């Protein structure tokens, strides 16, 4: 499982961080919008369900899961 993000679309809602903090972190830069960072781009298979929920409930469809 490989994770990438479409950064143009993120508004920093933080749903992903609530669903799966092991993989997603939302940080707030000094100026501008908070955006998501992927902490682990190829997370363990055990996290698949949580990552899938994060992608599904991201209000902006930012998270892309490959394989």
């Amino acid at each position, binding site marked *: 499982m490989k994770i990438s993000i479409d950064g*143009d679309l993120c*508004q920093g*809602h*933080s749903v992903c961080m609530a669903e799966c903090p092991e993989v997603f972190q939302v940080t707030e830069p*000094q*100026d501008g*919008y908070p955006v998501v960072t992927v902490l682990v781009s190829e997370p363990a298979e055990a996290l698949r369900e949580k990552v899938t929920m994060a992608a599904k*409930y991201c*209000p902006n*469809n930012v998270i892309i899961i490959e394989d």
Partner: protein
Amino acid sequence: MQKSALKQPPKVSGALQDGGHMAEFADNFCTFLSRAHAECGELAEFDFGGQNTVLMSGPAAQEVFFRTPDEQFSQAQAYQVMVPVFGPGVIFDAPPDRCKTQLKIQVDALRYQNMKAYAGVIAQEVEDWIADWGDEGEVELLHAFHELTMHTATHCLLGKEFRQNMTDEFFSLYKDLQAGVQAISFVDPYMQQPLFAARDAARERLEEIVSELVNKRRGSGKQYGDALETFMTGTYNDGSHLSDTEITGLIIATMFAGHHTSSGTAAETLLEIAKHPQYAAELKTEIDAIYGNGEEISLASMRAIPRLELFINEVLRLHPPLVILMRRVMEDTKYKGYIIEAGKTVAVSIFESHMNPDVFPQPENFNPHREEPEQAFAYIPFGGGRHKCAGNAFALLQLKAIFSALLRRYDFELTGPAEDYVDEISNMTIRPKDPCVIKYKRRRA
């Protein structure tokens, strides 16, 4: 490529001397937008009351619309009509960096952490709202959902105390603000006009009300868990807080974005439930399974309710509450051999996009089993890109809570033939035609 080698977007026929296509658009934007797309293709230029507007349609052109940065396609410049409604220095009237911070603070109020509190508020408001429905009766959907969503919106935005002590004055001020945004406002929102004078008086009085509330809260040391608290604590980069004018503006902006849209969508959803007993039965089976073991609505509506979500998605496809989205072109922009010149407006039609038969087969049919389209930026009830509606998760949470509560208790049916229930499509929004009455009857155990 040389600028001269680029073509101008094709023009839609039938512009009138006075107002261009404004009258035709205001009368029936559905037929107008279909005609524009059919005549001209992906880019169709029309005259919107003196503003040359290029409709960008199809997933590819729409993706360009949503991905182009604000410096090139400006949202603020396209929505100057909202400035007198939101107030001076707020959002579209603020310098770019302050605007960005204000929008960030608005998104903060809608973040996951606040959502849990809102879920509880909404569940309670829905319970109170249906408390006196009894075993059976009739309900007029537009007014019923207008009232409910006004209660949830003020409760989540301004807090419990405000909501409980809210007078009719607030409703009437809000109504005056809404009436201040008309097709004519796009021509000049500052002309001498009774509607605009009422709008300005309402804006001023609302700020007094909000200031009073803010002053009461400052220094109280209490936690409220509502949007007003987030707006009051948010800071600019220099550490300063939002002024009362700005806080009032954010409240109005949030109400404007979320209230009539949610209210109209709730009405359309219940109407589709009453129209389609076979799909309603599927929803009830799902709801019964989820809530059968005593699950609370506030928690469950934050989780997956797949069939209900697909049903709501299809309602939003067929009845998107907003019709077009606009941006002002700040720099000449090339698209497939065409040039869209600075100073023009670009627009995307949510309605037209959702009625594209290449993406949605038999688009006029309501079908909640429809497959999700493969193309991004084709299904766009909340817009897309950086300016995508920040309240979309809130809206879905609210709709899931409302229909969990209603479907557990009642069956719904139409009071007359289905053909009598049509959408009202004037005034740049889509909603059921008033009055829209349906019957409800308590479900047998």
